[in-house]
Protein backbone atom coordinates (compact mmCIF):
# COMPACT_ATOMS: atom_id res chain seq x y z
CA UNK A 1 0.00 0.00 0.00
CA UNK A 2 2.85 2.28 0.96
CA UNK A 3 4.58 1.69 -2.36
CA UNK A 4 1.39 2.24 -4.37
CA UNK A 5 1.05 5.47 -2.42
CA UNK A 6 4.55 6.50 -3.50
CA UNK A 7 3.74 5.80 -7.14
CA UNK A 8 0.51 7.78 -6.83
CA UNK A 9 2.40 10.65 -5.23
CA UNK A 10 4.88 10.55 -8.12
CA UNK A 11 2.00 11.01 -10.56
CA UNK A 12 0.53 13.83 -8.47
CA UNK A 13 3.80 15.79 -8.31
CA UNK A 14 3.36 18.77 -10.61
CA UNK A 15 7.08 18.79 -11.45
CA UNK A 16 6.61 15.51 -13.31
CA UNK A 17 4.10 17.06 -15.69
CA UNK A 18 6.26 19.81 -17.17
CA UNK A 19 9.48 20.36 -19.07
CA UNK A 20 11.56 18.07 -21.25
CA UNK A 21 11.56 15.34 -18.61
CA UNK A 22 7.83 15.61 -17.89
CA UNK A 23 5.11 13.09 -18.71
CA UNK A 24 3.47 15.08 -21.57
CA UNK A 25 6.76 15.56 -23.41
CA UNK A 26 7.89 11.95 -22.94
CA UNK A 27 4.46 10.68 -23.99
CA UNK A 28 4.51 12.86 -27.11
CA UNK A 29 7.98 11.56 -28.00
CA UNK A 30 6.84 7.98 -27.46
CA UNK A 31 3.66 8.33 -29.53
CA UNK A 32 5.42 10.23 -32.34
CA UNK A 33 8.23 7.66 -32.55
CA UNK A 34 5.79 4.74 -32.49
CA UNK A 35 3.44 6.30 -35.03
CA UNK A 36 6.22 7.15 -37.48
CA UNK A 37 7.73 3.67 -37.15
CA UNK A 38 4.37 1.99 -37.72
CA UNK A 39 3.63 4.11 -40.79
CA UNK A 40 6.97 3.34 -42.41
CA UNK A 41 6.79 -0.34 -41.46
CA UNK A 42 3.32 -0.54 -43.02
CA UNK A 43 4.46 1.30 -46.14
CA UNK A 44 7.16 -1.32 -46.63
CA UNK A 45 5.34 -4.44 -45.46
CA UNK A 46 1.80 -4.01 -46.82
CA UNK A 47 2.71 -3.94 -50.54
CA UNK A 48 4.95 -6.98 -50.08
CA UNK A 49 2.34 -9.05 -48.25
CA UNK A 50 -0.58 -7.99 -50.45
CA UNK A 51 1.18 -8.41 -53.79
CA UNK A 52 2.68 -11.77 -52.87
CA UNK A 53 -0.69 -12.89 -51.54
CA UNK A 54 -2.47 -11.72 -54.67
CA UNK A 55 -0.21 -13.66 -57.00
CA UNK A 56 0.22 -16.51 -54.56
CA UNK A 57 3.93 -16.71 -55.29
CA UNK A 58 7.00 -16.31 -53.13
CA UNK A 59 4.91 -16.35 -49.99
CA UNK A 60 6.94 -19.15 -48.50
CA UNK A 61 10.09 -17.11 -48.85
CA UNK A 62 8.50 -13.86 -47.62
CA UNK A 63 7.04 -15.46 -44.53
CA UNK A 64 10.28 -17.24 -43.71
CA UNK A 65 12.31 -14.06 -44.09
CA UNK A 66 9.81 -12.20 -42.02
CA UNK A 67 9.91 -14.91 -39.32
CA UNK A 68 13.68 -14.62 -39.22
CA UNK A 69 13.08 -10.89 -38.73
CA UNK A 70 10.93 -11.71 -35.71
CA UNK A 71 13.75 -13.77 -34.26
CA UNK A 72 16.25 -10.89 -34.20
CA UNK A 73 16.05 -9.18 -30.81
CA UNK A 74 15.09 -5.51 -31.14
CA UNK A 75 17.67 -4.59 -28.55
CA UNK A 76 20.45 -6.12 -30.65
CA UNK A 77 19.22 -4.15 -33.67
CA UNK A 78 19.13 -1.01 -31.58
CA UNK A 79 22.74 -1.43 -30.46
CA UNK A 80 23.92 -2.18 -33.99
CA UNK A 81 22.06 0.88 -35.25
CA UNK A 82 23.76 3.03 -32.59
CA UNK A 83 27.14 1.75 -33.76
CA UNK A 84 26.25 2.67 -37.35
CA UNK A 85 24.48 6.01 -37.03
CA UNK A 86 25.20 7.21 -33.47
CA UNK A 87 22.73 7.89 -30.68
CA UNK A 88 19.46 9.73 -31.00
CA UNK A 89 16.10 9.09 -32.63
CA UNK A 90 17.41 7.37 -35.79
CA UNK A 91 18.64 4.06 -34.30
CA UNK A 92 15.39 3.67 -32.34
CA UNK A 93 13.40 4.38 -35.48
CA UNK A 94 15.36 1.83 -37.53
CA UNK A 95 14.95 -0.89 -34.90
CA UNK A 96 11.22 -0.22 -34.48
CA UNK A 97 10.54 -0.25 -38.22
CA UNK A 98 12.34 -3.59 -38.48
CA UNK A 99 10.27 -4.88 -35.57
CA UNK A 100 7.04 -3.67 -37.16
CA UNK A 101 7.46 -5.26 -40.59
CA UNK A 102 7.13 -9.05 -39.97
CA UNK A 103 3.61 -9.23 -38.48
CA UNK A 104 2.26 -6.98 -41.22
CA UNK A 105 3.84 -9.03 -44.03
CA UNK A 106 2.67 -12.34 -42.56
CA UNK A 107 -0.86 -11.21 -41.80
CA UNK A 108 -1.50 -9.46 -45.07
CA UNK A 109 -0.13 -12.43 -47.02
CA UNK A 110 -2.28 -14.89 -45.10
CA UNK A 111 -5.30 -12.58 -45.36
CA UNK A 112 -4.93 -12.55 -49.14
CA UNK A 113 -4.46 -16.33 -49.36
CA UNK A 114 -7.44 -16.94 -47.11
CA UNK A 115 -9.78 -15.40 -49.68
CA UNK A 116 -11.97 -18.25 -50.88
CA UNK A 117 -10.79 -19.47 -54.29
CA UNK A 118 -14.45 -19.76 -55.41
CA UNK A 119 -15.05 -16.10 -54.65
CA UNK A 120 -11.98 -15.16 -56.68
CA UNK A 121 -13.14 -17.42 -59.55
CA UNK A 122 -16.59 -15.89 -59.42
CA UNK A 123 -15.14 -12.41 -59.61
CA UNK A 124 -13.11 -13.38 -62.66
CA UNK A 125 -16.15 -15.09 -64.14
CA UNK A 126 -18.01 -11.77 -63.83
CA UNK A 127 -15.32 -10.24 -66.01
CA UNK A 128 -13.19 -8.53 -63.38
CA UNK A 129 -9.58 -7.96 -64.26
CA UNK A 130 -6.77 -8.96 -61.91
CA UNK A 131 -6.46 -5.45 -60.46
CA UNK A 132 -10.20 -5.18 -59.89
CA UNK A 133 -10.22 -8.56 -58.17
CA UNK A 134 -7.50 -7.27 -55.90
CA UNK A 135 -9.14 -3.96 -54.98
CA UNK A 136 -12.82 -4.94 -54.94
CA UNK A 137 -12.77 -8.54 -53.75
CA UNK A 138 -9.54 -9.69 -52.16
CA UNK A 139 -8.57 -6.58 -50.19
CA UNK A 140 -11.96 -6.04 -48.54
CA UNK A 141 -12.10 -9.69 -47.53
CA UNK A 142 -8.49 -9.68 -46.33
CA UNK A 143 -8.86 -6.38 -44.47
CA UNK A 144 -9.60 -7.87 -41.02
CA UNK A 145 -6.42 -9.94 -41.25
CA UNK A 146 -4.41 -6.95 -42.44
CA UNK A 147 -5.75 -4.85 -39.59
CA UNK A 148 -4.86 -7.62 -37.13
CA UNK A 149 -1.28 -7.47 -38.42
CA UNK A 150 -1.16 -3.71 -38.03
CA UNK A 151 -2.56 -4.01 -34.52
CA UNK A 152 0.03 -6.60 -33.47
CA UNK A 153 2.73 -4.47 -34.98
CA UNK A 154 1.53 -1.30 -33.30
CA UNK A 155 1.37 -2.87 -29.84
CA UNK A 156 4.83 -4.43 -30.31
CA UNK A 157 6.24 -1.07 -31.38
CA UNK A 158 4.68 0.91 -28.54
CA UNK A 159 5.93 -1.60 -25.97
CA UNK A 160 9.40 -1.90 -27.48
CA UNK A 161 9.95 1.85 -27.97
CA UNK A 162 10.73 1.76 -24.23
CA UNK A 163 14.09 0.18 -25.10
CA UNK A 164 15.14 3.34 -26.94
CA UNK A 165 15.89 4.89 -23.54
CA UNK A 166 18.71 2.37 -23.17
CA UNK A 167 20.49 4.01 -26.10
CA UNK A 168 20.04 7.54 -24.85
CA UNK A 169 16.78 8.44 -26.60
CA UNK A 170 13.67 9.76 -24.81
CA UNK A 171 10.15 8.39 -24.67
CA UNK A 172 8.42 6.78 -21.72
CA UNK A 173 11.28 4.30 -21.32
CA UNK A 174 13.31 7.18 -19.87
CA UNK A 175 11.30 6.88 -16.62
CA UNK A 176 12.02 3.15 -16.44
CA UNK A 177 15.75 3.29 -17.27
CA UNK A 178 16.44 6.37 -15.12
CA UNK A 179 14.26 5.02 -12.32
CA UNK A 180 16.32 1.83 -12.28
CA UNK A 181 19.62 3.73 -12.42
CA UNK A 182 18.63 6.12 -9.63
CA UNK A 183 16.89 3.39 -7.63
CA UNK A 184 13.82 5.60 -7.83
CA UNK A 185 11.30 2.77 -7.96
CA UNK A 186 8.14 4.88 -7.88
CA UNK A 187 9.40 6.55 -11.09
CA UNK A 188 10.21 3.17 -12.63
CA UNK A 189 6.73 1.81 -11.91
CA UNK A 190 5.06 5.01 -13.04
CA UNK A 191 6.89 4.60 -16.37
CA UNK A 192 5.83 0.97 -16.63
CA UNK A 193 2.21 1.91 -15.89
CA UNK A 194 2.28 4.64 -18.55
CA UNK A 195 3.67 2.28 -21.21
CA UNK A 196 1.16 -0.41 -20.23
CA UNK A 197 -1.74 2.03 -20.47
CA UNK A 198 -0.56 3.34 -23.82
CA UNK A 199 -0.27 -0.21 -25.20
CA UNK A 200 -3.80 -1.03 -24.03
CA UNK A 201 -5.20 2.13 -25.57
CA UNK A 202 -3.51 1.31 -28.89
CA UNK A 203 -4.73 -2.29 -28.71
CA UNK A 204 -8.37 -1.34 -28.06
CA UNK A 205 -8.59 1.53 -30.50
CA UNK A 206 -7.09 -0.53 -33.32
CA UNK A 207 -9.40 -3.41 -32.43
CA UNK A 208 -12.28 -0.97 -32.86
CA UNK A 209 -10.87 0.13 -36.21
CA UNK A 210 -10.50 -3.48 -37.26
CA UNK A 211 -14.17 -4.08 -36.48
CA UNK A 212 -15.17 -1.06 -38.53
CA UNK A 213 -12.94 -2.21 -41.38
CA UNK A 214 -14.59 -5.60 -41.59
CA UNK A 215 -17.11 -5.69 -44.46
CA UNK A 216 -20.66 -6.00 -43.12
CA UNK A 217 -21.17 -9.35 -44.82
CA UNK A 218 -18.16 -10.86 -43.07
CA UNK A 219 -18.79 -9.47 -39.60
CA UNK A 220 -19.08 -12.06 -36.88
CA UNK A 221 -19.36 -11.54 -33.19
CA UNK A 222 -15.67 -12.33 -32.83
CA UNK A 223 -12.75 -10.22 -33.94
CA UNK A 224 -10.07 -12.13 -35.81
CA UNK A 225 -7.04 -12.50 -33.64
CA UNK A 226 -3.53 -12.35 -34.93
CA UNK A 227 -2.88 -15.71 -36.57
CA UNK A 228 0.38 -16.32 -34.76
CA UNK A 229 3.64 -17.16 -36.43
CA UNK A 230 3.01 -20.88 -35.91
CA UNK A 231 -0.07 -20.78 -38.10
CA UNK A 232 1.81 -18.71 -40.59
CA UNK A 233 4.60 -21.26 -40.80
CA UNK A 234 2.11 -24.08 -41.19
CA UNK A 235 0.33 -22.29 -43.97
CA UNK A 236 3.58 -21.47 -45.67
CA UNK A 237 4.72 -25.04 -45.41
CA UNK A 238 1.41 -26.36 -46.73
Amino acid at each position, binding site marked *: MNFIGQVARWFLDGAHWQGDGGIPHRLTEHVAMSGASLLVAAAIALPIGVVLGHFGRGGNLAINISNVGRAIPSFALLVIAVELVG*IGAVPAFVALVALGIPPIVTNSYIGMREVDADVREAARGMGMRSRMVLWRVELPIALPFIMAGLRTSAVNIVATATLAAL*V*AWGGLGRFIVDGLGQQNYPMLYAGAILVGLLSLIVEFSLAGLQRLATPAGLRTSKIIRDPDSKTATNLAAA
Partner: protein
Amino acid sequence: MRLKRIYVLGASMVALALITTACGSTGGPASTKATITIASFNFSESIILAHIYGDALKNKGYTINYKDKLGNREIVEPALESGQIDLYAGYAATDLTFVEGKQGVTPDAGTDGQANVQKLNAHLNSKGIKALDPSPAVDQNAFAVTKAEADQNHLTKLSDVSSVASNWTLGGPPECPTRPFCQPGLAQTYGLHFKAFKSLDAGGPLTYAAFKSGAINIGLVFSSDGGISANDLVVLDDDKHLQQADNIVPLIRSSVANTEVTSLLNSVDAKLNTKDLTALNKSADVDKQDPTDLAATWVKNHGF
Protein backbone atom coordinates in the same frame (compact mmCIF):
# COMPACT_ATOMS: atom_id res chain seq x y z
CA MET B 1 49.96 -51.21 -38.76
CA ARG B 2 50.21 -52.38 -35.18
CA LEU B 3 54.01 -52.18 -35.38
CA LYS B 4 53.76 -48.58 -36.51
CA ARG B 5 51.62 -47.73 -33.50
CA ILE B 6 54.18 -49.22 -31.21
CA TYR B 7 56.89 -47.11 -32.81
CA VAL B 8 54.79 -43.97 -32.36
CA LEU B 9 54.11 -44.88 -28.76
CA GLY B 10 57.78 -45.55 -28.13
CA ALA B 11 58.82 -42.30 -29.75
CA SER B 12 56.38 -40.32 -27.64
CA MET B 13 57.62 -42.01 -24.48
CA VAL B 14 61.19 -41.06 -25.34
CA ALA B 15 60.13 -37.51 -26.11
CA LEU B 16 58.22 -37.27 -22.85
CA ALA B 17 61.19 -38.60 -20.91
CA LEU B 18 63.48 -36.04 -22.57
CA ILE B 19 61.11 -33.18 -21.78
CA THR B 20 60.75 -34.31 -18.17
CA THR B 21 64.50 -34.52 -17.63
CA ALA B 22 65.00 -31.23 -19.39
CA CYS B 23 62.55 -29.56 -17.05
CA GLY B 24 64.09 -31.26 -14.08
CA SER B 25 67.56 -30.10 -14.95
CA THR B 26 66.55 -26.42 -15.31
CA GLY B 27 64.43 -26.56 -12.18
CA GLY B 28 67.00 -28.25 -10.05
CA PRO B 29 69.86 -25.85 -9.52
CA ALA B 30 67.67 -22.72 -9.64
CA SER B 31 67.35 -20.64 -6.50
CA THR B 32 64.58 -21.22 -3.98
CA LYS B 33 62.61 -18.20 -5.15
CA ALA B 34 58.89 -18.52 -4.63
CA THR B 35 56.22 -19.25 -7.18
CA ILE B 36 53.76 -16.36 -7.31
CA THR B 37 50.22 -16.70 -8.64
CA ILE B 38 48.87 -13.47 -10.11
CA ALA B 39 45.20 -12.96 -10.96
CA SER B 40 43.46 -10.31 -13.02
CA PHE B 41 39.89 -9.04 -13.33
CA ASN B 42 38.02 -9.60 -16.54
CA PHE B 43 39.01 -6.43 -18.37
CA SER B 44 42.17 -5.64 -20.29
CA GLU B 45 43.63 -2.99 -17.98
CA SER B 46 43.72 -5.58 -15.21
CA ILE B 47 45.40 -8.17 -17.45
CA ILE B 48 48.01 -5.62 -18.55
CA LEU B 49 48.79 -4.71 -14.93
CA ALA B 50 48.98 -8.37 -13.84
CA HIS B 51 51.48 -9.10 -16.60
CA ILE B 52 53.51 -5.96 -15.89
CA TYR B 53 53.91 -7.14 -12.28
CA GLY B 54 54.47 -10.73 -13.45
CA ASP B 55 57.07 -9.96 -16.11
CA ALA B 56 59.03 -7.72 -13.74
CA LEU B 57 59.03 -10.47 -11.09
CA LYS B 58 59.93 -13.14 -13.63
CA ASN B 59 63.00 -11.12 -14.63
CA LYS B 60 64.12 -11.32 -10.98
CA GLY B 61 63.90 -15.12 -11.15
CA TYR B 62 60.44 -15.76 -9.70
CA THR B 63 58.16 -18.36 -11.23
CA ILE B 64 54.83 -16.82 -12.17
CA ASN B 65 51.45 -18.48 -12.58
CA TYR B 66 48.76 -16.35 -14.18
CA LYS B 67 45.05 -16.60 -13.50
CA ASP B 68 43.92 -14.14 -16.13
CA LYS B 69 40.33 -12.89 -16.22
CA LEU B 70 39.63 -14.81 -13.03
CA GLY B 71 36.42 -12.83 -12.61
CA ASN B 72 35.12 -9.75 -10.86
CA ARG B 73 36.16 -8.55 -7.41
CA GLU B 74 33.59 -10.82 -5.78
CA ILE B 75 35.70 -13.74 -7.02
CA VAL B 76 39.25 -12.35 -7.05
CA GLU B 77 39.39 -10.80 -3.55
CA PRO B 78 38.19 -13.94 -1.69
CA ALA B 79 40.69 -15.99 -3.75
CA LEU B 80 43.46 -13.77 -2.37
CA GLU B 81 42.16 -14.14 1.20
CA SER B 82 42.07 -17.92 0.88
CA GLY B 83 45.56 -18.07 -0.66
CA GLN B 84 44.48 -19.49 -4.04
CA ILE B 85 46.19 -16.49 -5.57
CA ASP B 86 49.05 -14.35 -4.22
CA LEU B 87 48.71 -11.03 -5.98
CA TYR B 88 46.41 -8.80 -8.01
CA ALA B 89 46.38 -5.19 -9.10
CA GLY B 90 43.69 -3.57 -6.99
CA TYR B 91 42.14 -0.11 -6.95
CA ALA B 92 42.53 1.78 -3.66
CA ALA B 93 39.02 3.18 -3.20
CA THR B 94 37.06 0.36 -4.85
CA ASP B 95 38.89 -2.40 -3.01
CA LEU B 96 38.57 -0.51 0.27
CA THR B 97 34.81 -0.09 -0.24
CA PHE B 98 34.51 -3.78 -1.14
CA VAL B 99 36.48 -5.02 1.87
CA GLU B 100 34.61 -2.69 4.23
CA GLY B 101 31.32 -3.83 2.79
CA LYS B 102 32.28 -7.45 3.42
CA GLN B 103 33.29 -6.69 6.98
CA GLY B 104 30.14 -4.69 7.63
CA VAL B 105 32.06 -1.44 8.17
CA THR B 106 30.67 1.87 6.90
CA PRO B 107 32.55 2.65 3.65
CA ASP B 108 34.93 5.57 4.15
CA ALA B 109 37.06 5.65 0.99
CA GLY B 110 38.24 9.19 0.38
CA THR B 111 39.93 11.38 -2.19
CA ASP B 112 43.46 10.59 -0.94
CA GLY B 113 44.97 7.41 -2.37
CA GLN B 114 47.57 7.06 0.36
CA ALA B 115 44.92 7.26 3.07
CA ASN B 116 42.76 4.69 1.27
CA VAL B 117 45.71 2.28 1.16
CA GLN B 118 46.39 2.77 4.88
CA LYS B 119 42.79 1.90 5.64
CA LEU B 120 43.04 -1.12 3.33
CA ASN B 121 46.05 -2.36 5.28
CA ALA B 122 44.21 -1.86 8.56
CA HIS B 123 41.45 -4.16 7.29
CA LEU B 124 43.60 -6.72 5.44
CA ASN B 125 46.84 -7.23 7.40
CA SER B 126 45.15 -9.58 9.86
CA LYS B 127 44.14 -11.74 6.90
CA GLY B 128 47.73 -12.12 5.72
CA ILE B 129 47.36 -9.55 2.94
CA LYS B 130 49.31 -6.36 2.33
CA ALA B 131 48.43 -3.37 0.17
CA LEU B 132 51.69 -1.92 -1.19
CA ASP B 133 52.30 1.67 -2.26
CA PRO B 134 49.59 3.29 -4.38
CA SER B 135 50.65 4.12 -7.92
CA PRO B 136 50.18 7.61 -9.35
CA ALA B 137 48.15 5.82 -12.06
CA VAL B 138 44.44 6.07 -11.36
CA ASP B 139 41.38 4.55 -12.97
CA GLN B 140 38.49 6.50 -11.52
CA ASN B 141 35.51 8.60 -12.49
CA ALA B 142 36.54 11.69 -14.40
CA PHE B 143 34.97 14.30 -16.62
CA ALA B 144 36.11 14.72 -20.19
CA VAL B 145 35.52 17.25 -22.96
CA THR B 146 36.47 17.15 -26.61
CA LYS B 147 39.97 18.40 -27.37
CA ALA B 148 38.53 21.07 -29.66
CA GLU B 149 36.28 22.41 -26.92
CA ALA B 150 39.12 22.33 -24.38
CA ASP B 151 41.41 24.30 -26.69
CA GLN B 152 38.74 26.79 -27.66
CA ASN B 153 37.75 27.59 -24.06
CA HIS B 154 41.20 27.04 -22.51
CA LEU B 155 40.01 24.28 -20.23
CA THR B 156 42.42 22.11 -18.27
CA LYS B 157 40.62 21.60 -14.97
CA LEU B 158 37.04 21.20 -13.82
CA SER B 159 36.90 24.60 -12.15
CA ASP B 160 37.61 26.17 -15.58
CA VAL B 161 34.21 24.92 -16.75
CA SER B 162 32.26 27.41 -14.63
CA SER B 163 32.42 30.04 -17.38
CA VAL B 164 30.65 27.83 -19.91
CA ALA B 165 28.58 25.40 -17.80
CA SER B 166 25.29 27.25 -18.16
CA ASN B 167 25.32 26.61 -21.92
CA TRP B 168 26.53 23.04 -21.67
CA THR B 169 24.91 19.62 -21.62
CA LEU B 170 26.35 17.07 -19.18
CA GLY B 171 26.34 13.38 -20.11
CA GLY B 172 26.54 10.52 -17.66
CA PRO B 173 24.90 7.32 -16.44
CA PRO B 174 21.18 7.51 -15.52
CA GLU B 175 22.10 7.68 -11.81
CA CYS B 176 24.28 10.78 -12.35
CA PRO B 177 21.62 13.31 -11.27
CA THR B 178 21.38 11.70 -7.83
CA ARG B 179 24.96 10.59 -7.07
CA PRO B 180 27.41 12.75 -5.10
CA PHE B 181 30.30 11.96 -7.50
CA CYS B 182 28.32 13.23 -10.49
CA GLN B 183 25.85 16.08 -11.07
CA PRO B 184 25.19 17.03 -7.40
CA GLY B 185 28.94 16.93 -6.66
CA LEU B 186 29.75 19.11 -9.66
CA ALA B 187 27.16 21.61 -8.43
CA GLN B 188 28.27 21.58 -4.77
CA THR B 189 32.04 21.30 -5.12
CA TYR B 190 32.56 23.26 -8.32
CA GLY B 191 29.41 25.36 -8.52
CA LEU B 192 28.71 23.94 -12.01
CA HIS B 193 25.07 24.13 -13.08
CA PHE B 194 24.54 22.71 -16.54
CA LYS B 195 21.84 23.64 -19.01
CA ALA B 196 20.75 20.02 -19.40
CA PHE B 197 21.62 16.47 -18.51
CA LYS B 198 21.64 13.58 -20.99
CA SER B 199 21.20 10.08 -19.62
CA LEU B 200 23.80 7.77 -21.23
CA ASP B 201 26.09 5.16 -19.69
CA ALA B 202 29.08 5.11 -17.34
CA GLY B 203 31.90 6.03 -19.72
CA GLY B 204 30.77 3.50 -22.32
CA PRO B 205 29.98 3.52 -26.04
CA LEU B 206 26.91 5.76 -25.63
CA THR B 207 29.01 8.46 -24.01
CA TYR B 208 31.56 8.36 -26.82
CA ALA B 209 28.78 8.38 -29.43
CA ALA B 210 27.21 11.39 -27.70
CA PHE B 211 30.53 13.27 -27.82
CA LYS B 212 30.86 12.40 -31.50
CA SER B 213 27.41 13.69 -32.40
CA GLY B 214 27.80 16.79 -30.24
CA ALA B 215 24.87 15.79 -28.03
CA ILE B 216 26.94 16.51 -24.92
CA ASN B 217 29.74 18.94 -24.11
CA ILE B 218 31.11 17.20 -21.03
CA GLY B 219 30.73 13.62 -19.94
CA LEU B 220 31.62 11.10 -17.27
CA VAL B 221 34.43 8.70 -18.30
CA PHE B 222 36.91 6.44 -16.53
CA SER B 223 40.23 8.25 -16.27
CA SER B 224 42.37 5.54 -17.89
CA ASP B 225 39.88 4.41 -20.55
CA GLY B 226 41.42 3.80 -23.97
CA GLY B 227 38.45 5.45 -25.67
CA ILE B 228 39.46 8.85 -24.32
CA SER B 229 42.39 9.34 -26.66
CA ALA B 230 40.76 7.33 -29.45
CA ASN B 231 37.88 9.84 -29.46
CA ASP B 232 40.04 12.95 -29.13
CA LEU B 233 38.84 13.73 -25.63
CA VAL B 234 40.76 15.23 -22.75
CA VAL B 235 40.14 14.56 -19.08
CA LEU B 236 39.76 17.69 -16.97
CA ASP B 237 41.77 17.76 -13.76
CA ASP B 238 39.66 17.16 -10.65
CA ASP B 239 41.31 20.14 -8.94
CA LYS B 240 38.88 20.29 -6.00
CA HIS B 241 39.00 16.53 -5.38
CA LEU B 242 35.44 15.42 -5.97
CA GLN B 243 36.30 11.81 -6.87
CA GLN B 244 37.43 9.02 -4.57
CA ALA B 245 41.05 8.13 -5.21
CA ASP B 246 41.15 4.83 -7.12
CA ASN B 247 44.93 4.54 -7.45
CA ILE B 248 46.31 1.26 -8.73
CA VAL B 249 47.66 -0.69 -5.75
CA PRO B 250 49.12 -4.22 -5.59
CA LEU B 251 47.32 -6.43 -3.10
CA ILE B 252 49.64 -9.26 -2.15
CA ARG B 253 49.81 -12.12 0.35
CA SER B 254 52.30 -11.26 3.09
CA SER B 255 53.89 -14.73 2.75
CA VAL B 256 55.31 -13.90 -0.70
CA ALA B 257 55.90 -10.19 -0.08
CA ASN B 258 59.59 -10.32 0.89
CA THR B 259 61.72 -7.18 0.71
CA GLU B 260 62.78 -7.79 -2.90
CA VAL B 261 59.24 -8.36 -4.16
CA THR B 262 57.87 -5.41 -2.20
CA SER B 263 60.47 -2.94 -3.39
CA LEU B 264 60.24 -4.19 -6.98
CA LEU B 265 56.44 -3.83 -7.11
CA ASN B 266 56.64 -0.42 -5.44
CA SER B 267 59.13 0.83 -8.00
CA VAL B 268 57.02 -0.58 -10.86
CA ASP B 269 54.00 1.20 -9.41
CA ALA B 270 55.93 4.45 -9.09
CA LYS B 271 56.75 4.32 -12.82
CA LEU B 272 53.14 3.72 -13.88
CA ASN B 273 51.05 6.77 -14.62
CA THR B 274 47.53 7.39 -15.87
CA LYS B 275 48.74 8.61 -19.26
CA ASP B 276 50.70 5.41 -19.95
CA LEU B 277 47.85 3.30 -18.67
CA THR B 278 45.39 5.10 -20.95
CA ALA B 279 47.69 4.51 -23.93
CA LEU B 280 48.06 0.82 -23.01
CA ASN B 281 44.28 0.48 -22.66
CA LYS B 282 43.77 2.11 -26.03
CA SER B 283 46.21 -0.32 -27.67
CA ALA B 284 44.37 -3.23 -26.07
CA ASP B 285 40.72 -2.15 -26.37
CA VAL B 286 40.69 0.01 -29.48
CA ASP B 287 43.60 -1.39 -31.51
CA LYS B 288 43.01 -4.96 -30.26
CA GLN B 289 46.62 -5.70 -29.35
CA ASP B 290 47.45 -8.55 -26.97
CA PRO B 291 47.52 -7.22 -23.36
CA THR B 292 50.35 -9.60 -22.41
CA ASP B 293 52.54 -8.31 -25.28
CA LEU B 294 51.80 -4.72 -24.26
CA ALA B 295 52.81 -5.51 -20.70
CA ALA B 296 56.05 -7.18 -21.84
CA THR B 297 56.97 -4.14 -23.93
CA TRP B 298 56.26 -1.74 -21.05
CA VAL B 299 58.41 -3.81 -18.66
CA LYS B 300 61.26 -3.93 -21.16
CA ASN B 301 61.09 -0.20 -21.93
CA HIS B 302 61.20 0.70 -18.24
CA GLY B 303 64.14 -1.57 -17.51
CA PHE B 304 62.53 -3.99 -15.04
